[in-house]
């Protein structure tokens, strides 16, 4: 049974890259394109990894991030944050487990997230 990775990303191409990378890293991937739907989903499942694009529409990435961090069930979940803004990235380094500055390549993503497996 492989671990779940939740990809919260609205851009179709980025979602594909994230999805494939996490898949190649050995995770089962679920992609959610809408922020509000994501809010609901994280209450239902306990993924090993959540990748969060800070620039999704309809909801602030920070709000979602806070919600994830506040949820006791998700305390063991690694949060990977993706942003194009280097300064936002600096600010999030304490909160997220991994901060990625876009653009991020497929191979880098695959190799980095491989290390997030819990059952090693």
């Amino acid at each position, binding site marked *: 049974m492989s671990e779940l990775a939740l990809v919260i990303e609205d*851009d179709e*191409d*980025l979602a*594909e890259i994230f999805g494939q990378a996490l898949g*190649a890293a050995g995770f089962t991937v679920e992609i959610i394109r809408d922020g509000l739907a994501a809010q609901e989903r994280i209450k239902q499942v306990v993924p090993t990894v959540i990748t969060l694009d800070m620039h999704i529409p309809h909801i602030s990435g920070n709000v979602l991030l806070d919600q994830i961090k506040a949820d006791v069930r998700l305390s063991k979940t690694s949060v990977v944050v993706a942003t194009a803004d280097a300064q936002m990235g600096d600010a999030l380094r304490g909160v997220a487990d991994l901060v990625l500055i876009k653009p991020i*390549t497929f*191979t880098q993503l695959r190799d980095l997230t491989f290390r997030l497996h819990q059952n090693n």
Partner: protein
Amino acid sequence: MNPFNSLSKFLNRLTDVPSTDPDDSRRRKILNIILIGMVTAAGVTALWMLIIWALKLAAMSDVSSILVPSTVAMISCLIVYALNRYWSGIVASAMFLISLMYILTLTDTPHELSSGRSIYLLAIPIIISSVLLNSRASLVFWGLISIQLIYLAQVAGDVVNIPAIMSFFFLAIISWLSSRSLEQALRDLRVINAELDQRVAERTSELSAAFFRETIEAGRREAILNSIADGVVVFDRNGLAILANPSITSLINKSQKQIIGSELNTLLDSPELKAGDRGSLTALLEKSAKDLSNFRVTWGKRTLSVNAAEVRDDANRSMGTVAVFRDFTREAELEQMKNTFMAIVSHELRTPLNAILGYAEMLKEGVYGQMNGRQHGVSERIMTNTQRLLGIVSDLLDQAQIEAGRLKIQMAPCRPAELLDNLRGVMDRIASDKGVGLVTELDPSMPPILIGDSQRIQQIMVNLTGNAVKFSEKGSVRVRVFPCDKNSWRIQTIDMGKGIPEDALGYIFESFRQVEWGSTRQHGGVGLGLSIVKQLVELMNGDVVVETEMGRGSTFTVTLPLILPE
């Protein structure tokens, strides 16, 4: 009007004889003075006699011996005065002197006059003659006096007084010479005066011509200044505003009267000018630093571009500063729009390019199925070209940001070793494809960690190395990182390529400039690489220099300040 003044005025009118010859005028005036004096003395004497007679203190017979000569003397003097004033000074003086000679002989006996105590009286006409007449007159009168002496000696039965005649001769000579030198001096003085007058007249007309020209010039200058649409303020050496044209008043909301005569600080003391801008503007105007030209300040609702230049005279001394203020509001808005546009466009360009890159990479990695050799190669080609395109977009955005002054250098710890490794990661493939070797050298005395903007330093390395490889056909490119002294370190790229022509050295660091090798552009690129390197290096307070030799290669050396972590 005190009585002394009016008396001297009256006397002047009495004694002055206007004449075209100033010497003549002077002589006649002197004669008049003597005559008036004598008239007065004779008149007083006669009056006194009359009074005595009237008071019955003496009889007419006693009085008359003095009264008659006095009256005669008075009348004669008046006649001579009239002659002197209305006819000829020479005749009057001659008459006066000859009369004087005769009268003197009446004052004593012939014996005393020719050889005794009164002989010296006869010197008087000799001396006076050179004053009243031509300076040589003293010699003439010496002759006359000598004849008189001989006659008097005859009458007295004495021997002719030769020594006296000789002495009188010398006296006449002295009178003549001193009178002559006085007159010469007076003449010289008159010549000098005339020359001075002439020069003053010339100077005055020169000055008035110059003044007239100056007025016209000033009028012209003012017309020019008034028609300039930009605001112009001229400050003198001490920072006082001495000139302001009308256009400045609408830009900074002060009237010309308020500006002219006020000091720099007063001028900049406006609520519409922010403190930070005020400080920089003061620095610009006080020092006219060249690197602060095209300086922008926000003044009220407007954005002004300020340029200042020092004015120097022919001897290269500072005369003051000229400051030109241009309303840059529209241009600033346009620039702002352009930058926003650039940011949006670059984001819009980069997003799909990154997507293409991502898919090509995934294809290559076999995510969508195993690739054969050729498919693998093709996906790499897609990646390379996409990266090249991304590079150009990034360069364009960097250039726009640098120009807008918005590119910030982030100082953080970075590792030179890592930078060189990353450089290899990017450039190895490109260099080997071209058949050019790539050698990186990290000097062992280089500190392992230093403070800098690793992204931008990486960019500098990549740009320089990329150029070095691009312009080499063979050999290898060396990239060296080494400390220069305890305060700076260097990145150096050494290639064995074609070299850079000397005239190109002047412009290779300019934006969008490339060295033209014939009419075909073999090497591609948009010409931003070196200009970005230079601007980044300058933002880091470093510098970049190039040494080159045609056919042998080029060496680019970047020197940066060495900042170590605490």
